[in-house]
């Protein structure tokens, strides 16, 4: 071996690595990973924790650093694991895990400032990944906290040596973030957004909640116990009265004697409607539930979006499941009429019953039908049957057997909307009246703070629609006949035991209700104004700013002028507060000290030496003197005293830290009493 090579000093990592910057780097990275912890597999989390713990021990000199070959093997194995888990390295989920894993390995070989920067950079990317994935208001503090943590870690790392003191670094980081805020605002407002769901990545396997395309006895009660929001509605102008607030969802046509299904029926031509009365204009914001239904006030006049199909039974069905917050404007009439006759095909579909099921129901229908002269009389008779039949509203009815309608009508007589709608439509069909089950939501809670209706899963409802020749489809809500109070009052009032104790407490305590409403309003505003901020809103802002016929070029121009404005502001700020940039570190620290003291109201004159300045502070601001005087004396010593070389550099660094740490109050804590000399 060449003798020169043997004389090479030991590798860098043998040197003492300061603990504090390492600690902060690890903290920043782990925090970034934790933001995504529910989306990364357990093994990746384990790798992260193991690497962080190992590096912590290395930094504390408890363990040797992992040798290079081992790191390489680990890298290969872990990347293979990612590929095995996701079958790709592309996309947000796989990318996040890859970032966590690679960052963890990078932690193992982190020595010195440059490496720490890389790890903190990865932590910032993890924050970005979390932001891309979820934008709920409740997560905002988490994201802000993580941004602050990363910036603090950067500062602590940047300072070298034992690092900057935490309080000082955090303050500087917060200041930097604040300074960046206008820039962020400019980008938010004017950065041209690609229309469409650019960020919306394919839905993950979120559980599908909300109404489905089938209804069995009992299926809706699971929803009723849930107070999760389904969608929010904001009316522009008139608000329909409570008894008209039916939110139309899946219409079910096909009955097998137990379960109602939407069915793979061939669509029939939708009879032409005549709209009565005034329309209601409103916008709906759907909470993502992985369903394809766009709920509307019964009855909507058309589709607001070309990707949403307006079905023959007045449903809106989207091409893609709703996986992100979706807002649409709609127009509905609560009263309609149709004088066209129903086609035979349609009549056949809407009157179909399974042949061998629910015989007693058929019997009853036949009996009532005999007595009735026309369809409306028959309907009235059935309604009377429900009113007087001793039915009870319950969210926990007994199980029904396969002939569910028979069992319900003649045996249990206890149930909720699904049971009543199912039984009513079955009776109608048995009596020869075309009828169908409509599921959806009914009512909604008015949020006075946000000025919108919140429709919860607990508002899920099912009702019936019957065809009356000459008048068209009419809504009949058998539940309202049996339990009218169910429509005007919440489930909590009627059946308080149907929901959990926690939910009951949350939604019956007035103060809590208010708080929840406020929080919901805040969330809604956040979702509507911030998360859903799109190119149309951008152009709207430009138009409000006075730009006629705003388009992309106007947006780019606004972005550019915003950027220039921000830069000018920063430049002005720097120019004003710093003056010409002092030459050396000591001078900069001293200038900073003087600025701080100047902000406290006692500025140094340009021709004033440090000692005179200190003396003046003692005279004028005795409250500052104990902290300011030693600093000024230290500066005087460093600048003019017989110090030099290593000592001076170290002392200068110490002085810098002391200056950064110094906090001075603007006003003296206690004003010394002024004594008048004159009598």
């Amino acid at each position, binding site marked *: 071996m060449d003798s020169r090579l043997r004389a090479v000093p030991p590798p860098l990592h043998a040197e003492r690595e300061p603990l504090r910057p390492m600690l902060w780097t690890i903290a920043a990275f782990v925090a970034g990973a934790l933001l995504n912890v529910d989306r990364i597999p357990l093994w990746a989390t384990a790798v992260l924790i193991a690497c962080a713990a190992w590096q912590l021990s290395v930094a504390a000199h408890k363990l040797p650093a992992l040798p290079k070959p081992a790191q390489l093997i680990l890298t290969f194995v872990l990347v293979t694991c990612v590929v095995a888990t996701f079958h790709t390295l592309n996309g947000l989920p796989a990318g996040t895990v890859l970032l966590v894993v690679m960052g963890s390995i990078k932690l193992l070989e982190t020595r010195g400032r440059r490496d720490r920067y890389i790890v903190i950079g990865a932590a910032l990317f993890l924050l970005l990944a979390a932001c891309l994935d979820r934008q709920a208001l409740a997560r905002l503090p988490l994201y802000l906290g993580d941004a602050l943590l990363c910036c603090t870690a950067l500062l602590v790392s940047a300072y070298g040596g034992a690092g900057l003191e935490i309080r000082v670094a955090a303050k500087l980081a917060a200041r930097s973030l604040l300074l960046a805020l206008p820039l962020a605002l400019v980008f938010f407002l004017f950065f041209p957004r690609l229309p469409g769901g650019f960020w919306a990545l394919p839905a993950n396997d979120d559980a599908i909640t909300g109404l489905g395309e089938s209804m069995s006895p009992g299926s809706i009660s699971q929803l009723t116990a849930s107070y999760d929001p389904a969608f929010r509605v904001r009316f522009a102008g008139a608000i329909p009265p409570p008894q008209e607030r039916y939110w139309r969802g899946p219409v079910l046509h096909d009955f097998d004697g137990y379960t109602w299904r939407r069915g793979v029926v061939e669509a029939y031509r939708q009879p032409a409607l005549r709209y009565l009365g005034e329309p209601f204009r409103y916008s709906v914001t759907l909470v993502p539930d992985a369903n394809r239904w766009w709920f509307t006030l019964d009855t909507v006049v058309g589709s607001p979006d070309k990707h949403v199909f307006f079905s023959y039974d007045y449903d809106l069905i989207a091409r893609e499941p709703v996986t992100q917050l979706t807002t649409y404007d709609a127009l509905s009439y609560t009263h309609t009429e149709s004088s066209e006759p129903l086609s035979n095909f349609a009549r056949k579909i809407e009157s179909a019953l399974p042949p061998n099921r629910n015989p007693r129901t058929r019997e009853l229908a036949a009996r009532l039908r005999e007595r009735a002269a026309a369809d409306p009389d028959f309907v009235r008779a059935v309604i009377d049957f429900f009113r007087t039949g001793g039915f009870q509203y319950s969210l926990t009815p007994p199980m029904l057997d396969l002939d569910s309608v028979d069992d319900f009508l003649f045996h249990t007589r206890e149930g909720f909307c699904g049971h009543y709608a199912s039984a009513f439509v079955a009776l109608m069909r048995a009596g020869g009246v075309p009828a169908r089950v409509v599921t959806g939501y009914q009512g909604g809670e008015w949020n006075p703070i946000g000025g919108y209706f919140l429709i919860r899963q607990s508002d899920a409802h099912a009702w019936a629609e019957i065809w009356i020749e000459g008048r068209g489809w009419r809504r009949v809500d058998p539940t309202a006949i049996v339990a009218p109070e169910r429509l005007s009052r919440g489930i909590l009032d009627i059946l308080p035991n149907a929901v959990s104790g926690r939910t009951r407490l949350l939604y019956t305590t007035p103060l809590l209700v208010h708080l929840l409403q406020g929080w919901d309003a805040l969330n809604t505003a956040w979702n509507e104004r911030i998360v859903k901020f799109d190119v149309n809103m951008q152009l709207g802002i430009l138009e409000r700013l006075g730009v006629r016929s705003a388009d992309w070029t106007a947006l780019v121009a606004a972005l550019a002028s915003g950027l220039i404005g921000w830069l000018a502001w920063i430049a002005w700020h720097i120019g004003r507060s710093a003056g010409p940039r002092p030459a050396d570190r*000591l001078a900069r620290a001293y200038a900073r000290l003087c600025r701080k003291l100047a902000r406290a109201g006692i500025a140094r004159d340009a*021709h004033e*030496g440090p000692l005179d300045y200190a003396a003046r502070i003692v005279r004028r601001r005795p409250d500052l003197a104990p902290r300011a005087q030693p600093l000024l004396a230290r500066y005087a010593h460093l600048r003019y*005293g017989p110090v030099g070389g290593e000592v001076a550099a170290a002392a200068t660094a110490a002085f810098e830290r002391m200056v950064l740490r110094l906090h001075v109050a603007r006003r003296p804590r206690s004003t010394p009493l002024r004594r008048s000399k004159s009598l």
Partner: protein
Amino acid sequence: MEPDRAALQRGLAALGTVILGKSTQVRLCLACLLARGHLLIEDVPGVGKTTLAHALAHVLGLAWQRVQFTSDLLPADVIGVSVFERTRQLFEFRKGPIFTQLLLADEINRASPRTQSALLEAMEERQVSADLTTYSLPDPFFVVATQNPHDEVGTFALPESQLDRFLMCVTLGYPDADHERELLKSGARRELLPQIAPALNSVALLRIQAAVRAVHVADALLDYTLALIARTRARADLKLGLSPRAGQGLIRASQAWAYMQNRAAVMPEDVQAVLPAVVAHRLERREGLDMRAGSALTDEILKAVPVPL
């Protein structure tokens, strides 16, 4: 060196009992001597110039001589004269009063330019040449001169080139009311002099002077001093800016001042403290009745030059 500092403080205190209410001027005078500089005390008669000079000599414990300058005073009266010694058939040099440690030159502007320049040359070179022989003056050697600037009849104002030889020019001014009352009450201050014990001696003084030279002068301070000097040269209303010798003097005086403040290094404050005394007599405005630039001018200069960070 602590005993020296203590002795210096004792000396200052003693001077304070003689010269009432002029502690800054007294300190400046002392600083001037510690910086091995010659001192000019300039003021109207009767404010204690001569008393101060006497007190300084006394407190420093130096051998001193006093010469009252008049228009008929000849250089030989100050420096000495070669006299023919009849018995030994040769000229022998009789040393004049300048051969002492501290020379009090009273009313220096009354002497003829010839005598003045003889004195001033001796001051600068710290040696006297007579009859091809050079005689060294003792060490330490100081000249403390006094003059009355308002006296114009029968005086020869010192030209700038010669004023430059004085490290400092100190103006006493009238005492304030309280101290003047004290003066009136207690009678002549000069009578107090014999009661004052010398605080120092020539050996201690030399030691202190060496210590003063060792006071640290940082580059930053040199920058500041240079900026001050440059400022005097840049001003259009001055006939002349400060000479490099003035700059040297400024540094030396600042060192002495810093030493008296018990500092190991010179601070900008030290420069600022001595600057008026060191430069005021060297600066002259181009026009105006005010021949000698006063404290207002030095104040302006100080305010105009920022202390570098």
